[in-house]
């Protein structure tokens, strides 16, 4: 432990705060998809940059854990690097970029392409936990709507989308119904990732620091993306394969590579892309 982290508890938060967060987590697991208010602490990271995920990870991480942190699917974006370093520094835990090696994956905006197992926990950073906030900004009103399971508003919105555009015009943060009860924000993951939440063997925890809410999807829970019988939910597809690993199954990032506007498509999940290329090399 270096001079800067001396005087701080393991993984930064004090044990009483961790206990408070764990209580909220237990409640969240018991009521899948329900947003549990918790006494979010001020963290040494700005609000909106992952303070909720940071607190959840801090509350669950132990010395034997191996942590992976991704942002936009990549381990190397500055915010992911920063959060990984934070735990390496304050908890001294092992970190990895390999999805399969991690016991805890903290993520912003993606679910890894490599399927998670029942030995893993995925922690989502959530900016706006309320799936209805664009339709009803009042927290008090939204709580009532959830209590009554009154989700008419969003169905009308999606119906209007279909009338206007021919399809539902939500591409990320696409709300899901968890365990047939609570409408829940999957955090701003692309709707491409929504099907991965359904019956996932891993425990899925969601932390929203600024909005002071925690929620969870326990392993093997039913997660349904909203849709209509005649307009079933579908995910994005690309005409291209990844330019680096050739995958047709992954979510692709588009990059502009020269002044003429030439585009290149590569996997957003950097670990998935690397390991596919490594496997290929081995095969050759």
């Amino acid at each position, binding site marked *: 432990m270096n001079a800067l982290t001396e005087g701080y508890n393991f993984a930064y938060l004090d044990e009483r705060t961790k206990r408070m967060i764990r209580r909220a987590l237990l409640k969240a697991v018991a009521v899948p998809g329900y947003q549990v208010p918790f006494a979010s602490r001020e963290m040494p990271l*700005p609000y909106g940059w992952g303070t909720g995920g940071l607190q959840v990870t801090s509350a669950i991480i132990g010395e034997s854990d191996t942590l992976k942190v991704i942002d936009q699917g990549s381990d190397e974006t500055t915010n*992911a690097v920063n959060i990984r370093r934070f735990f390496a520094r304050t908890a001294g835990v092992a970190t990895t970029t390999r999805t399969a090696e991690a016991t805890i994956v903290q993520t912003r905006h993606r679910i890894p392409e490599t399927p998670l197992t029942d030995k893993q926990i995925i922690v989502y950073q959530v900016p706006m936990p309320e799936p209805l906030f664009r339709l009803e900004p009042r927290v008090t009103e939204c709580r009532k709507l959830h209590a009554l399971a009154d989700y008419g508003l969003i169905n009308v919105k999606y119906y209007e989308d279909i009338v206007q*555009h021919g*399809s539902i015009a939500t591409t990320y943060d696409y709300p899901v119904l968890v365990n047939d009860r609570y409408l829940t924000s999957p955090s701003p993951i*692309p709707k491409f990732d929504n099907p991965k939440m359904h019956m996932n063997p891993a425990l899925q925890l969601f932390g929203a620091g600024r909005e002071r809410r925690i929620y969870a999807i326990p392993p093997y829970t039913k997660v349904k993306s909203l849709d209509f019988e005649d307009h079933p939910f579908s995910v994005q597809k690309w005409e291209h394969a990844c330019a680096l690993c050739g995958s047709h199954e992954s979510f692709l990032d*588009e990059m502009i*590579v020269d002044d003429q506007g030439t585009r290149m498509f590569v996997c957003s999940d950097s670990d998935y892309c690397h390991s596919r290329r490594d496997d290929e090399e081995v095969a050759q």
Partner: protein
Amino acid sequence: MYVAVKGGERAIERSWDVLAKKRRGDVAVPELSVAQIREQMRLAVARVMTEGSVYDEDLAALAIKQAAGDLVEAIFLLRAYRTTLPRFGYTLPIDTEAMCVERRISAAFKDIPGGQMLGGTYDYTQRLLDFTLLAEGEQVGDATIAAKASGESAMPRVLSMLDKEGLIEQERSHENAPPPGDLSREPLSFPADRSTRLQNLARGDEGFLLAVGYATQRGYAHSHPFAGEIRHGEVAVEMVVDELGFAVEIGDIEVTECQMINQFAGSGDVPPTFTQGYGLAFGHSERKAMAMALVDRALRAEELGESVASPTQDAEFVLYHSDNVEASGFVQHLKLPHYVDFQSELELLRRLRAAHGADDNKENAA
């Protein structure tokens, strides 16, 4: 060529170095000391202590230095430190009537027991740039800072005089009142009681409160305010120590308090009476305390049976957006990569535009 997004770690370290260098500026100019900031930028220190909600002049000055004068960043630094501090307990309520007053004015009465005390204020400085400050070796007059302890010279609150006539409603603390909540330990929930609202406003951004308070004066929930009393000075902080069983003084803090007097038309049950809005801030922070008092009064609409017609009276709107550490973080998180979401939107937009073109080529061409 695909440029890999690797190297974030090294970039961050380099960024720290650049920042440190920028903060220090030209090394030929002597470095600012924390003591200089504490002594000579006391109003900045007061704001950082108030909104950072830690009364510590040295730490606030350090935060200002570290943040290169960005006060919202300094407030964030102080908050991030505060969150790690153990909680020993709660002090007794401070008694601002017993304040050692340095400045005290009332806009409601020409003369008041204890007198008006102008003290040090920028109000009547005529705002001419003082070019002598450009020169080194500033001359300081030998003004003595007068301070009156109200114990000796009787400086009762202006509002208590109205109270004697029953002209103003007063928040009376009753014996079985529940202890006030602690916003830094419990999430904000609605409906929020007045103590919770005041805590939120005390930590709230001065600029935000100023704008909301100003809006109330311009007709968004007009509440006819009078500055009943503004006082600034030192108050003692007392705490009951368990081992002793009685309260002991643990120090003095400087605060600025504002009590606004507002009209109230009365209702079927209550005769017309004055009502009040309250503001309190660390250090000398009159703008903040006054704005806070205006907003506090506006937020009391519901409890006083007034109609809630304007955003300034809407507790959810005001309290959820007052905190500058939250607001600054969330606004600036837009700097973080959003490649994935943006890619999803791109894909949708292209699809919609393709469909649109196929439907109606003419309109597209026009």
